[in-house]
């Protein structure tokens, strides 16, 4: 584990061989941001093509590669690693641990990620092009009819899955074994709680994804027929396995975001989080329900009516714990003394837009209505409201919130607020009209569309460019802060902040809590 009393090593080897949770967290965050930019670039190509009816910039085959890579890169490259980075930075500091439980493995779980995505991105230059079957890669489009690059895609899924599993094991091991004396489970900050539950979900379902892609690999190269009717298999089986992974995956993405919001709102409301216990139970309930609702993604495959009803009822139930969370956050704000710095603004944006995404989610859970919504732009609007306004907004909030602690410099508040307002407006211009075109009958994943959808699509594209541009401002603000931000050395950056991470010096020293704090 190296000598804890040194500062960081010099040069490249600091990053290559580091076992320091803060270094690794930093690398995760930068990696995920670069993937966010890459996935965003794919999105810009998609929106540029959809700016007007007719094919202008790319051909339909390439368009499909863009939608596929956009989804894969954003889910597995941007959002998930960003929260792992945040977990690396914050969990040891929040529970009073000197580092992660398994620092060497921590290094490996990060360093296998960039090669995995390098392989995935390199498929763009391969014969037959990149994967073009959507991020949900339904068989047989992804098996019998896939481009040759599918083998590389499978390999990169295996590697990034391994990375996620190792990262999760590390987080669980850390939370279960490294808490400071007195830090009982029910005293842990909510971010730690949500991550603990998320990590369990990851350990449970990433192997399922690995199983699904392994079956694909066997079907493609070793003559099995898991997903091919010709040999006695079934393409629908793929969808069941995929969504058995896929639905918990959705909560893997959003639960840490819930954790972030539950840290930030009390700080700026200057009032403790309302209903801490119920927040923990609601998170656990959502995690449990995520395992029994997967087939609501497949209402139109022709399930027996009993199946449809079961998955409909189970899915509707998710609204209860999710509602509890939203009510708790609003009540936390109630009769507080609020200020609206950038992190708080992003949390407010999260609260409003995530709730809208939750409502459309409830609408989508209603099986008969879903026959109209399914695979339309309504779905695209729904999941961007929860993914972007949920996960990405909360991630932005987290960066602004903890950046002063990380680098000892204060970001530019005006620029931060500008970033928020531009993203908020850009986001809504992009995705709100997508509800309309979806309800009017526009299917998702199409490179060209009927004239009746033209206005809203143009609006969407303009919004997307605005939203995309606002992220450049974000990048600039973060770099400017690190390089030349106003130095701050207050341990507690925010007046209302609570938690162990605010008891250490600012900027956080390379090693913290080498002697565990006493929590009362």
């Amino acid at each position, binding site marked *: 584990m190296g000598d804890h009393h040194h500062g960081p090593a010099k040069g490249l080897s600091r990053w290559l061989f580091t076992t320091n949770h803060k270094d690794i967290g930093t690398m995760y965050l930068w990696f995920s941001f670069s993937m966010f930019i890459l996935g965003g670039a794919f999105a810009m190509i998609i929106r540029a093509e959809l700016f007007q009816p*007719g*094919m202008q910039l790319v051909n*339909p085959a390439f368009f*499909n590669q863009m939608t596929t890579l956009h989804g894969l890169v954003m889910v597995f490259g941007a959002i998930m690693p960003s929260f792992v980075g945040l977990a690396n930075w914050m969990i040891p500091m929040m529970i009073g641990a000197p580092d992660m439980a398994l620092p060497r493995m921590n290094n490996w779980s990060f360093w296998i990620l960039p090669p995995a995505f390098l392989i995935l991105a390199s498929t763009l230059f391969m014969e037959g092009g990149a994967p*073009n079957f959507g991020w949900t890669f*339904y068989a*047989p*489009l992804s098996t019998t009819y896939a481009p040759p690059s599918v083998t590389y895609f499978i390999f990169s899924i295996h590697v990034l899955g391994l990375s996620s599993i190792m990262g999760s094991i590390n987080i669980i091991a850390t939370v279960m074994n490294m808490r400071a004396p007195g830090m009982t489970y029910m005293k842990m900050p909510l971010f730690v709680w949500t991550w603990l539950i998320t990590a369990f979900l990851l350990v449970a379902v990433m192997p399922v994804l690995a199983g699904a892609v392994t079956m694909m690999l066997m079907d493609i190269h070793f003559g099995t027929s898991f997903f091919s*009717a*010709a040999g006695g298999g079934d*393409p*629908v089986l793929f969808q069941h396995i995929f969504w058995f992974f896929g639905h918990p995956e959705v909560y893997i993405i959003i639960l840490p975001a819930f954790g972030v919001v539950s840290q930030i709102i009390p700080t700026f*409301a*200057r*009032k*403790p*989080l309302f*209903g*801490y216990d*119920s927040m923990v139970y609601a998170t656990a309930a959502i995690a449990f329900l995520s395992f029994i609702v997967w087939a609501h993604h497949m209402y*139109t*495959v*022709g399930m027996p009516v009993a199946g*449809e009803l079961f998955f*409909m009822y189970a899915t*509707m139930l998710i609204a209860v714990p999710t*509602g509890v969370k939203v*009510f708790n956050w609003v009540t936390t704000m109630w*009769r*507080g*003394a*609020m*200020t609206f710095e950038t992190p708080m603004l992003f949390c407010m944006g999260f*609260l*409003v837009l995530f709730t809208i995404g939750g*409502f459309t989610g*409830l*609408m989508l859970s*209603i*099986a*008969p*209505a879903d*026959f*109209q919504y*399914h*695979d339309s732009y309504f779905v695209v609007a729904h999941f961007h409201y929860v993914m972007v306004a949920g996960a990405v907004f909360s991630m932005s909030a987290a960066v602004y919130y903890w950046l002063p602690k990380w680098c000892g410099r204060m970001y530019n508040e005006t620029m931060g607020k500008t970033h928020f307002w531009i993203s908020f407006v850009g986001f809504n*211009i992009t995705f709100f009209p997508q*509800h309309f075109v979806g309800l009017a*009958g526009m*299917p998702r*994943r199409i490179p*060209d*569309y*009927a*004239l009746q959808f*033209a*206005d809203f699509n*143009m*609006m969407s594209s*303009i919004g997307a460019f605005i939203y995309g541009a606002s992220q450049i401002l974000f990048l600039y603000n973060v770099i400017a802060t690190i390089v030349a931000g106003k130095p701050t050395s207050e341990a507690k950056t925010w007046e209302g902040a609570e938690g162990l991470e605010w008891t250490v010096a600012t900027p956080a020293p390379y090693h913290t809590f080498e002697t565990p704090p006493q929590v009362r």
Partner: protein
Amino acid sequence: MLLKANRLRELALGPVLMLLSLASAGAAAAGDKVNQVNMAPGATEIGQSIYDLHMLIFWICVIIGALVFGVMFYSIYYHRKSRGVTPSTFHESTKVEIAWTVVPFLILIGMAVPATSTLLDIYDFDDAEMDVLITGYQWKWKYEYLDENGENVSFFSNLRTPQGEIYNTAEKGEHYLLEVDEPLVIPVDTKVRFLVTANDVIHSWWVPELAVKKDAIPGFINETWTKASVEGIYRGQCAELCGKDHGFMPVVVNVVSKDEYAGWLETKKAEAAEIRELMAQTFTLDELMTRGKAVYERNCLACHGANGEGGVGTAIAGSAIAMGDVSGHLEIGINGVPGSAMQAFGGQINDVEMAAVITYQRNAFGNNMGDLVQPIDVYNHKKG
């Protein structure tokens, strides 16, 4: 472009328009689909009850949203530090927690009841008056009317929009991308059962106004049904990503009166008989070229290019196949090239069309082979 000026004006009004359209969400007229912002009740009873369900849940969400956001914005305004408030410290209340667990649960039950009844209605497949087998192909639909006496009528339904409109060299028509060469024709006020399957990958047959969406899965059949109560032309699209031209395989359903339907079916059957007769005929080069050009544009152009220059497919102009011996050319046209995008067209176009398009390919694009392929040659080739 026709709509451009309008579009720009509306864009300028973007946010206002969004609010306005939200307000008018309930009142969207089915007639004018431009900038339609809500689901259409469509032309069926099921469509109407799905629409009602959709609006019910929408309004419940709006009310809950208004309450939650109302409290939130009240708090944002009145409970600000700048107003000099001191924060209170309460942080739990079991009673409140129980209330907002139980009340939403009850509301959900209120939603589940109508949802269940609509779902059960949709799942009532029985007692259909006619059956149509729908098969999804990359990238077109095939419709087959199942007939008691085995005289099934079947045809393919291809996108009719010319490549020029898609690639912006021609003005886009009113039904851009939502028009086909041959629509599905069904009678009004008749329960029509659709059996849905696919030939290659998963597709999904969707017509919003008929309230039908069902996945077409290779190897398996799914069933669904509709009963349209208003005559008209209803347009939809493939909803499941199915490869390159997923966005270019529309569904058009023409709902006509029962009489008109009966007449149409007779014509289709007569046409089938006529094709059998045509097969025995001999055509001149000109006749074959005219027919062949039409077949080419419908089936080959997307991959092989308007001038046979190739694209996804190989070039036909000057190709060794089109300029080689006839039987090799026929073999590829009929049986395709396994493992490539070149499909076996033998089962998709009839022998007259095959003869015409092979002749066309051998004589157009500067190939000028000068040889003719007659339907009987195609028939014989298939026979072996």
